[in-house]
């Protein structure tokens, strides 16, 4: 991999890129996402984010042969509002083309039953892509702590992967305001229910500061094929819509900020109050960007949103 280019004296800090890739024909004439179109959408997003002509070149910047990759999905919303199966398959395909062995890829969330209800096929052992929940391997016995959080971590994270690809869903949350990239890490810890007071703030930011998570995180691929603007985190079909998009970034704060704005626009369109007016503005995003965390930026002047 190329070394970082030396900074130019006096140059402004580089903007965080958030790529929004859309395909209005993602589902063809039906309701199911077309696998080939999903792969093409993923490629377009990755090529744009990494400024590469070919998808493989983009993925090679993230993983090397021998890496063990955890694809952390979100399966809480069942079949209606979980990380899209075709997207996850496309990710796994591109990872293998970049040199990662199938058996070294694990698609995971906290609970195997939830994964199955979301449509994932469980697989543990063998040479194929793995797919199971933390319930199969348990959490580490020892606590890790940062700021206000102290938790045990999934052994999938600590023992089965050195690279983490985050695949959250774009949706609102009744406590935090929104649940996108940063909150998807609640699925890594054993006690997420302890970290919901006060709009999950500062807990979401503190969880993402845990070194075991931060050191592994490479990329967020937010599934906005079906998104939800109200009633989350559970699936409420009456409040979901088909955005047919992916949000991709290496800055999870910038991605959450951008996703939040998308949700607010949809809420306004539907005549709903802002999250702020409902007393659940996602303040955790600002905390994640603050001097004590620096997980990314929530300053729109420093976010380059590129729509393709």
């Amino acid at each position: 991999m190329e070394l970082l280019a030396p900074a130019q004296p006096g140059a402004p800090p580089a903007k965080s890129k958030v790529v929004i890739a859309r395909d209005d024909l993602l589902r063809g004439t039906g309701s199911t996402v077309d696998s080939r179109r999903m792969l093409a959408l993923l490629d377009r997003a990755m090529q744009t984010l990494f400024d590469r002509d070919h998808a493989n070149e983009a993925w090679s910047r993230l993983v090397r042969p021998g890496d063990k990759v955890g694809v952390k999905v979100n399966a809480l919303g069942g079949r209606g509002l979980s990380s899209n199966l075709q997207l996850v398959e496309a990710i796994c395909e591109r990872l293998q083309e970049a040199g990662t062995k199938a058996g070294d890829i694990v698609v995971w969330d906290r609970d195997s039953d939830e994964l199955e209800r979301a449509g994932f096929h469980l697989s543990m052992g063998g040479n194929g892509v793995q797919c199971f929940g933390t319930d199969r391997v348990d959490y580490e016995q020892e606590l890790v702590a940062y700021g206000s959080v102290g938790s045990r971590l999934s052994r999938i994270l600590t023992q089965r992967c050195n690279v983490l690809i985050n695949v959250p869903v774009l949706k609102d949350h009744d406590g935090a305001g929104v649940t996108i990239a940063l909150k998807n890490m609640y699925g890594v810890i054993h006690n997420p229910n302890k970290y919901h007071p006060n709009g999950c703030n500062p807990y979401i930011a503190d969880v993402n500061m845990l070194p075991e998570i931060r050191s592994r995180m490479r990329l967020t691929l937010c599934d906005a094929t079906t998104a939800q603007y109200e009633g989350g985190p559970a699936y409420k079909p009456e409040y979901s819509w088909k955005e047919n998009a992916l949000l991709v970034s290496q800055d999870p704060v910038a991605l959450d900020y951008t996703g939040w704005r998308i949700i607010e626009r949809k809420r306004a369109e539907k005549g709903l109050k802002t999250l702020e007016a409902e007393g659940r503005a996602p303040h955790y995003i600002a905390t994640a960007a603050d001097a004590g965390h620096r997980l990314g930026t929530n300053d729109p002047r420093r976010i380059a949103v590129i729509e393709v």
Partner: protein
Amino acid sequence: MVHEFEMKANVDRRSFMMCALASGAALGVGEFPASLAAAPLPGGAQKQDDAQFTVEAKFYQKLENKKIKCKLCPRECTVGDRERGYCGVRENRGGTYYSLVHSRVCAAHVDPIEKKPLFHYLPGTVAFSLATAGCNVNCKFCQNWDISQSRPEQVPAEFTPPQRVAELAKQYDCPTIAYTYSEPVVFSEFLMDAADAGHAAGIRSIVVSNGYMQQEALKAAYGKMDAVKIDLKSFTESYYKDVVTGQLKPVLDSLVTLRKMDKWTEIVYLVVPTLNDDDAEFLGLARWIKTNLGVDVPLHFTQFHPEYLLKNLPITPVPTLERAKAIADAEGLHYVYIGNVPGHPAQNTYCPKCRKMLVERIGFTASKNLIHKDSCPFCQHPIPGVWHT
């Protein structure tokens, strides 16, 4: 391992061991038949059948859009569909709230009653002590965090319905069932049913709790208890907010309500160095107890040991505990104890009038009990408590 207090004091360990074994209680680790002792699940590979532990919760209110508002504790969690409350053991499924821990016993031991600690309740007897996973606070010093801060599916458990609880208490010659270790508030439904089964079999019930509960739930659930021990974590709201993630006032309200219900109550105050150990706090606490509960409520100042998220703090110095006791004594409280320091004379019960020792304790064992007809045998001063079965 589940324990209420770790014995780390450097005292007459040999005689303590002899007493502990004689009383049938190993050092905080009960011995149970394999049928009750839940073996750890190998690598988390087995899943428990959750349905057998799931009952509709009491104390909640249904809201619009399949949400609920829990009315069990002052958090009043508003819980969306498929989510759980802060405690992690109550879940909203389609707008109905469920307890996931009824009969889901993850820890069970036979403990001396002094271990709770309850010093004025059936001294020298043992309690069949049990817990489920979960808690409605997150004390940074929790000694049982491995079960209190876990979701029920993360902790091996045995299906132990109320009738079985009563049978086991009888089998192990326990006149009392104790709901303890984690936080019984969160398993109120199970506690209530087990207490009923126990009473039907002539077995009493006591609870070891943080008292962080709404009034209606408190009266319904702890109204079935024969004695209550409340962990009053501090006497400031700031400590409750920062160290406990709870609130002080509802706990004080609970204590007053228990007094009005005429429930035998004892209070434990865990003294954590630098955080809740200043004289003003001890004085405020003692005065509040005297005014609101009376001078006869036993108050235990217990020694903190580094644990969970407070491993950076030292063990409470014994002089600090003695200073707290001296302040409470000076305010006129009659029964002020020092806990978790085996061999300390302040573990004994003395007559508040003639100052003669009435109950001698070594560690968790009441080695001598001179109380006669609920009174001091020397001066006949009444000694409040539940002294006989």
